[in-house]
């Protein structure tokens, strides 16, 4: 499926009924949603923690300051993860 590019000005937030919380068994973050659990890897966890009203560009910027990685690759990763979460209706873009 063709993934539409997510605009840098879009503001991702958790979709209605989706909760981000810590799994007491592992200490890692999980997304809880209607009849599903998604265990997050470190990148997804970092991105979702920043989905607090910031724009996609601001999220990429904040992650770039934290990690020493190629900015273009980082931006592509962030957009891919957000697109995947949006497809599963776990985040909304406004």
């Amino acid at each position, binding site marked *: *499926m063709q993934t539409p590019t997510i605009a840098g000005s879009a503001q991702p937030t958790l*979709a*209605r*009924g989706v*909760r981000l*919380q810590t*799994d*007491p*068994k592992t200490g890692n973050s*999980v997304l*809880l*949603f*209607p*009849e*599903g*659990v998604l265990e997050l890897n470190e990148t997804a966890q970092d991105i979702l923690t920043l989905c607090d009203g910031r724009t996609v560009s601001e999220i990429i910027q904040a992650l770039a300051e934290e990690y020493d990685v190629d900015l273009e690759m980082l931006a592509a990763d962030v957009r891919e993860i957000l697109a995947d979460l*949006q*497809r*599963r*209706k776990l985040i909304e873009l406004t």
Partner: protein
Amino acid sequence: MMAPRPYALLAEITYRCPLHCPYCSNPTQTRSDQELTTNEWTRVIREAVALGVLQIGFSGGEPLVRRDLPDLIRAAREANLYTNLITSGIGLDDDRMGALRNAGLDSVQLSFQSDNTDLADEIAGARAHQHKLDAAAKIRAAGIPLSLNFVIHRRNIDRLLQMIDLAESLQAERVELANVQFYGWAFLNRAALLPTREQVVRAREIANAAKARLAGKIDIFYVLPDYYENRPKPCLSGWGQRYLTVNPIGEVLPCPTASSAIPDLRFENVRARELDWIWRESESFNRFRGTEWMPEPCQSCPQREIDFGGCRCQAALLTGNAGNTDPVCELSPNRASVDALLRNLNSSGGQTRDWTYRVNPGTRPVIFGAFERRAKV
């Protein structure tokens, strides 16, 4: 064997229900023991959280029948669980909706029998459809995410497109189009419920097209009609791996249909044992855990960690032995029995046949047809 951690608990808090759907997966014969009390359920919830459970589904029967449902939801939320209500919507008035929302209910899965009122009410054996439409509006107004569930069978499968349209007009976020699975009452009513091959082929096309058309708008989950598949479903992601069910009288089941489908397995009760012991140590949870129990052709099959040998309940119901390969699998020595059933149905043109409506615990089933036919009860 090391037990994995469970993620979800299905809390079947009652087998009582105002509907009489002939495809219900509840046992056709239930013991009349007392339902677990509020305090007992609260303890079960606490013990489930300690095991690692993150999600709880309140189901039944119709969970709204229990007046303490908001208390149970509050207890689950206080334990940080994600709470789903799986309901027919019957009994969901404004007061109850408010109480459930205030208790912290996270999401609702609302069942529908059809998009068409007359057909829906005939299938439910009750005037239910209009109440469901009202319930959907109340759930929306309360700001709670809404999933719709349609059980698909011979009598409604030709209206799949209209059912998807209904989900769209009710602004559901998710819709489950679940081809009927044959357990409990549905197993009893197989001859009336099994769709024809032609119907199944068309339904799949409609579901796939709708999935593509509504991507990003409604999440459509299509449950395959497994008798028509070549390989079995990966039932429960493996026995005793991720899920557990506690039924109304406190029995702990690896799968909600196990108590009726596999009568020779002894299921432990939360009134006698702690959940942790039952999950880790009990014979019922360990019997089919992992791959060691598997017979051939599963034992040497490259798919064995993908489909886990299919469904234990189905193996028990169709072959008389829960330890057999799911006979839906084309490699099963028992596949011929499934094929014979399909051949028989498809050669008879799939005409309407009578079904037996589900009845509540403690009452006797009535077979409609020979002496009397009543569309509505």
